[in-house]
């Protein structure tokens, strides 16, 4: 592994570890009242894979036209990934919103 690759890896690993720590700190004191909405809201955020799907759908064109079948399969996989990620995101945020709308205090 060359040095520049190692540098990139360390860079993103640092971000990864800090983000985990941050996630733990941000959520730690959640009341049980919000366990379900928090779970379904964070579940929607896990649909961030959408970014990967959009990228791979575009990168498909790097496959030379001579490999038409490969291109087609990669396109189908990416589009399916995009579809499921978007269902995850939209469904997740909408269902969380619907749920939170039911939580109310005394008028």
């Amino acid at each position: 592994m060359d040095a520049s690759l190692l540098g990139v890896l360390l860079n993103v690993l640092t971000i990864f570890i800090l983000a985990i720590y941050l996630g733990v700190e941000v959520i730690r004191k959640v009341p049980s009242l919000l366990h379900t909405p928090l779970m379904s809201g964070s579940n929607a955020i896990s649909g961030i894979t959408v970014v990967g799907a959009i990228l791979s759908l575009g990168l498909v064109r790097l496959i030379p036209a001579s490999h038409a079948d490969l291109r087609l399969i990669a396109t189908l996989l990416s589009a399916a990934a995009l579809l499921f990620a978007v269902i995850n995101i939209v469904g997740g945020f909408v269902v969380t919103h619907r749920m939170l709308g039911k939580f109310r205090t005394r008028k």
Partner: protein
Amino acid sequence: MTANEILRLAADIGYLAGSICFIIGLRRLSSPKTAVGGNLVGALGMLLALLSAIADTALQADLSGAAPAEVRTYILWLGGAILLGSLSGILLARFVDFKAMPQLVGLFNGFGGLASVLVAGAMILILAGSTTQESPVSAIATAVTALIGSITFWGSLVAAGKLQGVVTEKPVRYRGEQIVKGLMALAALAASAAYIAPELAGNVFPQSTAFILVVVTGSVLGLLLTLPIGGADMPIVIALLNSYSGIAAAATGFVLDPPNKILIIAGALVGASGIILTRLMCHAMNRSLANVLFGGVGAIVQQEGAGDIYAGRVKSTGAEEIAELLRIAQRVVIVPGYGMAVGRAATPVRQLFEAMEAAGTVVEFGIHPVAGRMPGHMNVLLAEESIPYDRLKEMDEINGSFPNTDIVVVIGANDVVNPQARSAQGSPISGMPILDVDAARTVIVVKRSLAPGFAGISNPLFVADNCLMFFADAKQGMEAVLKAYKEG
């Protein structure tokens, strides 16, 4: 700056802003007053991430140099999938019955895991076609994504199936179960190794075959790990799978070259929050995660002669007497359990709550953290009935108040109010924190029979001097009590 440099900058700023939105969104989601806004901030972050990804793609795939027909094809696929996905997501989220919420959340979670696996698969083909060398980091990340993503997908499907009743809620256990799981885990690791370092496997099969093997073994492992887990442990499993979907997304971030930071950040945040919830659930059951995944309450055989402790000592009651008691009570606590959910009894419970409040009685709900089938299940059910959330009390908050409580009404709960948990050992639920309902003046338990709860043990509460049993279906029973209460 050239146009490309501006686009690059815009995409990076968008990713950064999106990441910040996720952090603020999660922060706000963990407090009742700010939760609605938090969810919207999270959605905004997702929109920013999506737009940035499109800009990023234009650069990485050099779309400006592409033929117009190619760009059109990209936009068609992109728009089509986003449109179809949004539509299905909205329809599912808006029109699925609220009672089916746990399985819906489980299903969405599975989709996230599946998307990660599909992206990893597409990236392999793109690398293979473009003859770019896959970096070792990316190779490891691809195997991790395929493995965890498949486990998440199939595990979530089984969990959702169990909650929907399509798959048996009972723990599916068999002889040699641990060995089978262990062997499958080894097979999955071997397939991953064969993918990461093909020379280890003697270059017998191409990398794409190794990838498929990882997905297949991961899928089987997902099934094997979740099928043996029983219904009452579902809150833990759902929280854990939620964490997995985040980890799979973060791993996808490492698959891409260059690694994508927003995938890594958002995935790590979700992974961490899922782990926190998992730990909270484990604490609430006083069990280790390993015990839930590999052993567990479901495996314990019913105590012998469990019925004997009840013989001739149970005092049973009826709707009239309960209504009478509730009318003279000053403070009442209602303890709901999974029985209220399956019995669809939340509506009569709310009506009784309103009637008692109107009569000047103080009524609160005591909610055990693992009551139900997903974290916070009871809260959602009661909130749907518009019961103000300041009346829903957590276990620690309400436990001290039971000695000053005239009546506790337990509806469809068993193990979470079982005093056996207080004994140091000798019981499968020893050490599990419970609601100390037996400290109240009178406890009324609404339950169909004396059948044991999920833990398969008898409940000494039912024969306590201050306990009255009302043998009825949760819904019909509560309706009868409500009717008697209003008539009196």
